[in-house]
């Protein structure tokens, strides 16, 4: 497919060189790349935290870490992996791929998009800096009250209350952006039911975030007020209720699980058809089961509280809704297997990770069903069995899917193919290491090992499987080094990818790799689900795909834009506003230290004002200069 650069139509000359061009960019693709790089870097931080944890637990009565250090590390491991790795890698794909998949030239609010990225980045940096500035959050990523409001002498849980709050604002901003983009900026003919499944699942997660984040937002403010202003929301001695926090947290926290895994399910739903050379089996069922999971996800939160004493009626109700959610999840898995069925499978790296996703997610899904069995859950709750379960869902599931996405889409981002041999090494090492790490944790939990314990005594039979898990964790680390090496070498040494290296199905493969700043020289008119495939293949009388003769595409194949293409101009105000907001937040963290905190708040508010007013007064597209 010939690519013509129509920069002369753009109305300005995009400055694409130097750090300044990245700081001021509002291009969804560059923001996507920044999310991806950030997620990769923070995965090293979160991974290092995990390796320290596993080293401490390699044998009984570990002495590598103090209890205090361990508590900070496991808390930050959870926060880092959820908010700084999995969510931003999802945001990276959503930013980069949604406009390309629906035939848009950018997202609906490009500067808001940049703001969301910078707010995310500065918030995570603030949270991570806590290791050196006052101590990190040490009340678990769930931040249960009233432990989180107990010790106010340290600022640690203030970092949590403010940091997660700011990350939530960033997520709401980008979710609103994706919803507006998907609803209003689809190419002609791209009806909702012709949208790629990844875009669909991203739409669902955007709604989940917008509806669930305000709930934890309220909870976090109450925590911050309890800690700093003497309120008593969670204080039992004043008729407050510690369980209130658990409800607020899990009304966010359970949908959040689907926020982490649904985009990954979307990616797998793109990859399996491409490399099976068949359409996705039951597209509408896969889409609607994703929506059903999103809805039901709001009705299961109390299954995280089956030991809290809610009473048998509430426990029975939430047990049944939790069982129910297995049905749409099963539908997805069966449809994926049916997609493979009868296909011609190419088992390259994206496919291996996608199949690995299914295989591991089945385990995580089944162990999830055992949590719905309330009496059994009272044995499993807060043990390593649960740790095993959610790592099978979030690593074997979500992370495998996102890695599959990297191997699948990075050629579009860079124009170069990742190395297939290194990719296979990465897959098999990670598959082995992952199962060696987290498989034994099921056994440990059932054998009575609680989670969040910095050491365990001899004589309880925990030694062997903990040792295996530690070995496994280092194999995962090795596999990630192979992955990072593969990614780093690709822009220089990768083989050229071309526009459509996989003979794929969706319209992001119709434009150049990497795409020009305006994405498509000519935006395609969409007539089918899997539009690109239908421009390349028809079916014979047996129903088998046959290549269409060259030039066979229904007209008009592309829309005409006689007025030229108008892209938004770069702006540094979003970054300024985000920096001001995080400085303001950091001031709140240090509120208790008086002048330091108040000073930072004043400065932060000033910077925020500068950013917001500069942003408001700036035209979105400046004239050519």
């Amino acid at each position: 497919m010939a690519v013509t650069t129509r920069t002369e139509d753009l109305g300005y000359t995009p400055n694409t060189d130097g750090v300044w061009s990245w700081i001021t960019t509002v291009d969804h693709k560059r923001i996507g790349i920044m999310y991806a790089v950030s997620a990769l870097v923070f995965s090293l931080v979160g991974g290092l935290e995990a390796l320290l944890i596993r080293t401490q637990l390699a044998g009984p009565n570990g002495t590598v870490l103090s209890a205090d250090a361990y508590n900070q590390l496991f808390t930050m491991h959870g926060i880092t992996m959820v908010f700084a790795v999995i969510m931003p890698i999802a945001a990276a794909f959503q930013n980069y791929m949604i406009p390309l998949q629906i035939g848009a030239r950018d997202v609906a609010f490009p500067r808001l998009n940049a703001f969301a990225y910078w707010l995310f980045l500065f918030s995570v940096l603030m949270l991570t800096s806590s290791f050196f500035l006052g101590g990190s959050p040490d009340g678990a990523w769930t931040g249960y009250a009233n432990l989180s409001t107990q010790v106010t002498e340290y600022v640690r849980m203030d970092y949590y209350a403010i940091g997660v709050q700011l990350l939530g604002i960033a997520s709401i901003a980008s979710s609103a952006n994706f919803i507006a983009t998907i609803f209003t900026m689809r190419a002609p003919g791209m009806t909702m039911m012709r949208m790629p499944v990844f875009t669909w699942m991203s739409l669902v997660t955007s709604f989940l975030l917008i509806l669930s984040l305000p709930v934890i937002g309220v909870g976090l403010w109450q925590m911050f007020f309890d800690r700093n202003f003497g309120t008593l929301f969670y204080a039992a001695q004043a008729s407050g209720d510690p369980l209130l926090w658990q409800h607020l947290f899990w009304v966010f926290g359970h949908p959040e699980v689907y926020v982490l895994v649904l985009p990954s399910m979307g990616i797998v739903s793109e990859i399996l058809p491409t490399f099976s050379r068949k359409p996705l089996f039951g597209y509408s069922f896969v889409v609607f089961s994703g929506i059903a999971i999103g809805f039901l996800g709001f009705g299961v939160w109390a299954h995280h509280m089956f030991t809290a004493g809610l009473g048998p009626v509430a426990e029975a109700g939430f047990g049944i809704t939790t069982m129910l959610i297995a049905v749409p999840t099963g539908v997805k898995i069966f449809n994926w297997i049916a997609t493979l069925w009868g296909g011609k499978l190419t088992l390259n790296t994206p496919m291996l990770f996608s199949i690995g996703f299914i295989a591991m997610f089945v385990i995580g899904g089944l162990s999830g069903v055992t949590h719905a069995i309330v009496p059994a859950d009272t044995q499993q709750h807060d043990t390593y069995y649960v740790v095993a379960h959610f790592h099978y869902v979030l690593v074997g599931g979500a992370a495998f899917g996102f890695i599959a996405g990297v191997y699948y889409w990075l050629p579009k981002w860079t124009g170069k193919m990742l190395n297939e041999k290194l990719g296979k090494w990465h897959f098999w090492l990670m598959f082995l290491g992952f199962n060696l790490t987290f498989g034994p944790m099921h056994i440990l939990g059932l054998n009575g090992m609680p989670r969040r314990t910095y050491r365990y005594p001899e004589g309880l039979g925990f030694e062997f499987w903990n040792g295996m898990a530690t070995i496994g964790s280092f194999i995962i680390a090795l596999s990630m080094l192979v992955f990072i090496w593969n990614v780093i070498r690709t822009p220089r040494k990768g083989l050229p990818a071309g526009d459509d290296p996989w003979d794929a199905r969706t319209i992001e493969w119709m434009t150049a790799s990497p795409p020009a700043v305006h994405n498509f020289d000519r935006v395609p008119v969409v007539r089918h689900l899997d539009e690109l495939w239908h421009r390349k293949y028809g079916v014979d009388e047996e129903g088998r795909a046959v290549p269409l003769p060259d030039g066979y595409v229904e007209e008009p194949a592309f829309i005409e834009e006689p007025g030229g293409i108008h892209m938004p101009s770069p702006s540094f105000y979003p970054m300024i506003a985000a920096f001001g907001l995080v400085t303001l937040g950091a001031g709140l963290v240090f509120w208790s230290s008086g002048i330091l905190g108040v000073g930072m708040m004043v400065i932060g508010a000033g910077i925020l004002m500068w950013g917001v007013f500069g942003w408001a007064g700036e035209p979105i597209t400046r004239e050519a200069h």
Partner: protein
Amino acid sequence: MQRPVANGGGRRRSLTRTLAVVPGALLLAACSSTLPQSSLNPKSAEARQIDDLWILVLVIATIVFVIVEAALVFAIFRFRKRKDDDREPKQIHGNTALEIVWSIIPAVILAAVAVPTLQTLFDLRSPAEGDVVNVNVTGHQWWWEFEYPDILDDQGRPLTTANELHLPVGKTAELKMTSADVIHSFWVPPLGGKRDLVPGRETFIKITPDADRAGEQIPGQCAEFCWLSHADMRMLVFLQTESDFAAWAASQTQPADIPTDGLAASGYETFTAVCAACHQAVVAGPGGTVSVVGEALAPDLTHFGSRSTLGARVASNTAEHLAQWIDNPSDFKAMAPDLNDFGTGRILGMPDYGLGDDEIAGLVALLEGWK
């Protein structure tokens, strides 16, 4: 209602065990005496009810697992693209009948599992009936307080002990639980599922230890993260015959003697001057007058010498360990005594009082003598 647990439960269990060929080996390995804290090794009626349910679900889940993964693996090998095959596959978009079938089958399986789940749930959550041993449990950072409200000493004070729970076998004990500070969770896996101890609330758990388990000591520990020493908030449950339990209760309701000479006597002076700021003891003076010394902010020490562990099961209760503990408690487990606030009753650990060797020796003699 007394359930015919031993017969019905046992038969179903052996049947399902036979079916569970794949996880069977794993489970059998788990049911050895080397795993004293295992939930797969039930030693009470309640734990066995949970275990029966778990085995049922495990068998079903294993069957589903094998079928789904087999289909996946089969598809990978069967439909892998072969070099000599250039034909494209048939473009199949879906099949509504199949979708309905694989929506309904899981729903039916889950409905079938829901029935015993709810039965067991309501059964376990029903109040204990009949001749019940009542225990009030209070969680503290990082130790357990056990009070038997129906077992009183001569002055009418209930039996109070710490970190070591004694229960008679064959009778149902009902634990009424709350927390003095943050949320904890009572968990002794072989005796049943866990239950949180929530400040400002009361939660309940029933335990009916198996009659043939008398003489066993079963470890358990806190299962809800409660900060620094969460990992070291452990306990030990002693299962006793009814007569042994009665004898234990009788000795525990006796006051401790105030020693009159030797090391222990000097130790008692240190106790009243230092330890009594947090610890309590019921003591009998030379004339037989019984009084309570100290504050109930930390474990009751009246019968400290009769316990087999110290520091919430972080070490065996020997004179040497006790001396080390008094010398520097934070050596044994992480605590934060610098944050103690007597005004609000927030106690986060025992400080190092910098006692001299003589004072420590006196305290060891005193406390180890308080059987």
